[in-house]
């Protein structure tokens, strides 16, 4: 039956651990169905529900077909325009602003993780090719953890998931792979079958916790305190791995003296656990090795987020659980991203324009946008993100956007963000374009080829960048350095080097059309025990951290962050059928997951007189929202949960800087999970 289809290779480019390879089945120019690609060694031909549902995304009745112009902005009066008109309007505005301010600094780009493909760096490349422009920099997701891992090990590695089959103990620390990384579960189940014990540590009794042998509930953000309590117990009972510490770490004496002074009682109080739970974890770490720890992203979205990750790294190191098969403290990796990133670097010939960016903090975008005066930002290009639903300070953002003269959004659908745009350009999906995608978790690289013609008049971002560059250079020679004459395939080609080919065991990128390839990195992270820190060892005491005004110690207790006016913590937890604001509009998912609501413990609700499914009020320092209440005994009585794709939640969020992020991602993370709120029933 399959002979009648043409089969093409694709990658799911979303911000997801799995980065699955997909096979597309096309008949008569129509994509008929999708399935997983068996040649992918990690995802093994399996997709998640979102992946299987891509057909309904590609052919969604609401998908944008043509460039659209909204006039006046916010009016909802949309008019179809031609690409020529769209490009003319945009290029005209760029030139006009360039004349007015004698620079391109009034042009800003805000791009994030909606598509992680390498060719989706086209717009950044385009902006770089204009000389110095304004740019959203930083990262709302993993900044604090990236810095923490950098301070401890010097670079970012993960182990192959097969490694877990050698583990005796698996600690899923603040991660809910049942919802966010389903392909890993098979490896975990197999490890279980071979006798490993699985422990989940989380403030929420997650679906993953429900599958685990043991669940340990802690207070939100207290992961570092829990690690410190365990470390103290390990010290007191002489359970640390002296040999490992001597050979592979620096700063042990300093860290030990520091932990000695800390109070166990305070540590237990901060994490909300018992000494029995601490003893259990300490003994698993010391006596049931190798221990594989997987750290989630939520725990580092706290004011002490980087420190939480450092504490777990230190705990793994002091028990000798790093670099050995089946062990490790896993977070995320960059080792396989060996691309040249030439797409980012079309530097202008015009020497008057100096390349570089005027940074606007992506986590404090609204304020940073308003602050710019010399010159002010007047033009904003939004791509690979739904800015209005995924930003802090959303009211300020709306205000700041009013001062702009042209807002362009590249999208598949009309969103909250397009309401605030003047132009919306229809983008192709991964079934209509070329790309290359790597994962921040596993070690496979996959190619993405077009299966079908672009949907109606949609275009790839690369094509849009080329068109715009060409138009600008018609106005004025060398205005834009972004290449206008390179084919998509050439853009792919220039991302590879001989070294990269060697690591992939191929000679040409086209071989990826035969199936995804694993990049030849160590199977066990830090297996060679070579660390890229200044000392060449794991730094339990980091001078680099100290130099950046942080605690040098890899562990510590929390400062009191409680606020009597806002006694509850609202956690923003990812749900399984959406990735942030993506996949919101699919019929089958609407059936699966209920109307957005806030979850709270029934006893807390009772105390507050809040009925299940009634409307309740949630107030933070920033603002207040009215939302439907739902009950969950998965939470404790001081914690609430909401899924972050709920547009309302932004009203509660401002920018609270996390401790780390500046080194690796040019900006501190946002402590999104330090969201202190109060609740009342709606009278």
């Amino acid at each position: 039956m399959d002979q009648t289809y043409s089969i093409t290779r694709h990658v799911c480019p979303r911000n997801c651990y799995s980065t699955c390879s997909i096979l597309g089945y096309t008949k008569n120019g129509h994509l008929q169905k999708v399935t997983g690609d068996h040649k992918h060694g990690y995802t093994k031909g399996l997709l998640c529900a979102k992946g299987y549902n891509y057909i309904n995304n590609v052919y969604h009745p609401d998908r944008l077909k043509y460039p659209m112009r909204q006039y006046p902005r916010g009016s909802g009066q949309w008019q179809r325009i031609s690409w020529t008109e769209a490009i003319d309007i945009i290029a005209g505005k760029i030139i006009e602003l360039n004349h007015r301010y004698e620079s391109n600094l009034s042009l800003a780009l805000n791009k994030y993780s909606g598509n992680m493909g390498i060719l989706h760096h086209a717009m950044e490349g385009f902006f770089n090719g204009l000389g110095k422009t304004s740019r959203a920099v930083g990262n709302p997701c993993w900044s604090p953890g990236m810095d923490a891992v950098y301070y401890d090990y010097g670079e970012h590695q993960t182990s192959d998931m097969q490694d877990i089959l050698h583990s005796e103990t698996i600690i899923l620390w603040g991660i809910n792979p049942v919802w966010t990384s389903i392909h890993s579960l098979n490896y975990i189940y197999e490890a279980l079958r071979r006798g490993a014990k699985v422990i989940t540590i989380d403030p929420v009794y997650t679906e993953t916790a429900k599958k685990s042998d043991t669940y340990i509930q802690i207070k939100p953000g207290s992961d570092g305190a829990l690690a410190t309590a365990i470390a103290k117990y390990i010290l007191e009972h002489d359970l640390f791995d002296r040999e490992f510490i001597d050979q592979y770490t620096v700063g042990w004496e300093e860290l030990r003296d520091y932990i000695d002074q800390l109070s166990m009682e305070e540590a237990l109080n901060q994490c909300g656990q018992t000494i029995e739970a601490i003893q259990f974890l300490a003994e698993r770490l010391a006596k049931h090795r190798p221990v594989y720890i997987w750290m989630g992203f939520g725990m580092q979205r706290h004011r002490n987020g980087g420190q939480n990750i450092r504490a777990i790294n230190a705990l793994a190191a002091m028990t000798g659980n790093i670099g050995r098969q089946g062990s490790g403290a896993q977070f995320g990796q960059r080792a396989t991203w060996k691309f040249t990133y030439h797409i980012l670097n079309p530097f202008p010939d015009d020497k008057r324009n100096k390349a570089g960016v005027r940074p606007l903090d992506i986590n404090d975008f609204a304020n940073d946008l308003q602050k710019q005066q010399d010159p002010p930002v007047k033009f904003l290009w939004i791509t690979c993100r739904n800015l209005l639903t995924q930003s802090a300070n959303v009211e300020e953002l709306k205000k700041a956007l009013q001062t702009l003269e042209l807002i362009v959004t590249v999208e598949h659908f009309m969103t909250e963000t397009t309401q605030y745009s003047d132009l919306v350009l229809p983008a192709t999906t991964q079934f209509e374009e070329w790309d290359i995608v790597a994962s921040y978790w596993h070690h496979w690289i996959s190619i993405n080829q077009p299966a079908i013609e672009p949907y109606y008049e949609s275009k790839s971002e690369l094509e849009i960048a080329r068109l715009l560059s060409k138009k600008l250079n018609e106005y004025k020679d060398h205005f834009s350095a972004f290449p206008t004459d390179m084919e998509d395939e050439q853009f792919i080609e220039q991302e590879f080097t001989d070294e990269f080919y060697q690591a992939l065991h191929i000679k040409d990128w086209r071989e990826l059309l035969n199936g995804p390839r694993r990049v030849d990195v160590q199977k066990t992270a830090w297996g060679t025990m070579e660390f890229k820190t200044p000392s060449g060892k794991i730094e339990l005491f980091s001078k680099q951290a100290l130099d950046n005004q942080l605690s040098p110690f890899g562990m510590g207790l929390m400062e009191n962050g409680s606020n009597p006016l806002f006694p509850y913590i609202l956690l923003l937890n990812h749900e399984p059928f959406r990735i942030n604001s993506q996949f919101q509009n699919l019929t089958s998912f609407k059936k699966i997951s209920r109307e957005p609501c806030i979850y709270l413990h029934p006893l807390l609700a009772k105390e507050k007189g809040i009925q299940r499914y009634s409307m309740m009020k949630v107030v933070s320092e920033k603002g207040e929202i009215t939302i439907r209440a739902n009950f969950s005994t998965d939470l404790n009585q001081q914690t609430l949960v909401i899924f972050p794709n709920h547009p309302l939640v932004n009203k509660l969020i401002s920018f609270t800087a996390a401790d780390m992020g500046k080194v690796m991602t040019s900006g501190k993370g946002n402590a999104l999970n330090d969201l202190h709120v109060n609740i009342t029933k709606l009278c």
Partner: protein
Amino acid sequence: MAKKLGFLVNIERCIGCHACEISCKSFYQLEPNMRRRRVQELPEDVVGTPVRAFVSTACNHCDDPACKKACPVGAYTKREDGIVVHNQDLCIGCQMCGKACPYSVPMFNPVKKKMDKCSMCYDRLDVGQLPICVEKCPLEAIQIVDYNEVQPANAVSEIPTFADTSITHPTTHFILHKPGKQSRRF
């Protein structure tokens, strides 16, 4: 002896990811609001509080199929191996089967104006392939079992939320979830 094929759904392994449901839907190119398999969250009392679990069900390929009895044009047949097959060519879209099935399995296809239901992917089984949902469940939580051959240990045929099995004698069986240890304290 003839076979008695049925699904064995392992609630212990299932994570509720809906991949079975949506992969089937993609394979058979079903309309946006249609599905042949559905995944539901089980209420707490099924597996003991406060553990909750998920159950994935499709057509139960019953021993005594109500759909078949209700169909006025004989669109349903029960194969030797137990699979209940719906023949869309014969179907007149009267929806009697959907009303008769205690599990509301047959669904109306609004475009074809005919009923549609899980076929246990018999055309795949016939050539030695697994049904799509069985193959695509990332956790191998769905199996096809010949219940005339084996009676899997711990398998139960009734769970709350599942309609009275005495009406149609469904072949689907379930393996229940065992809760782990918890340290929850504040």
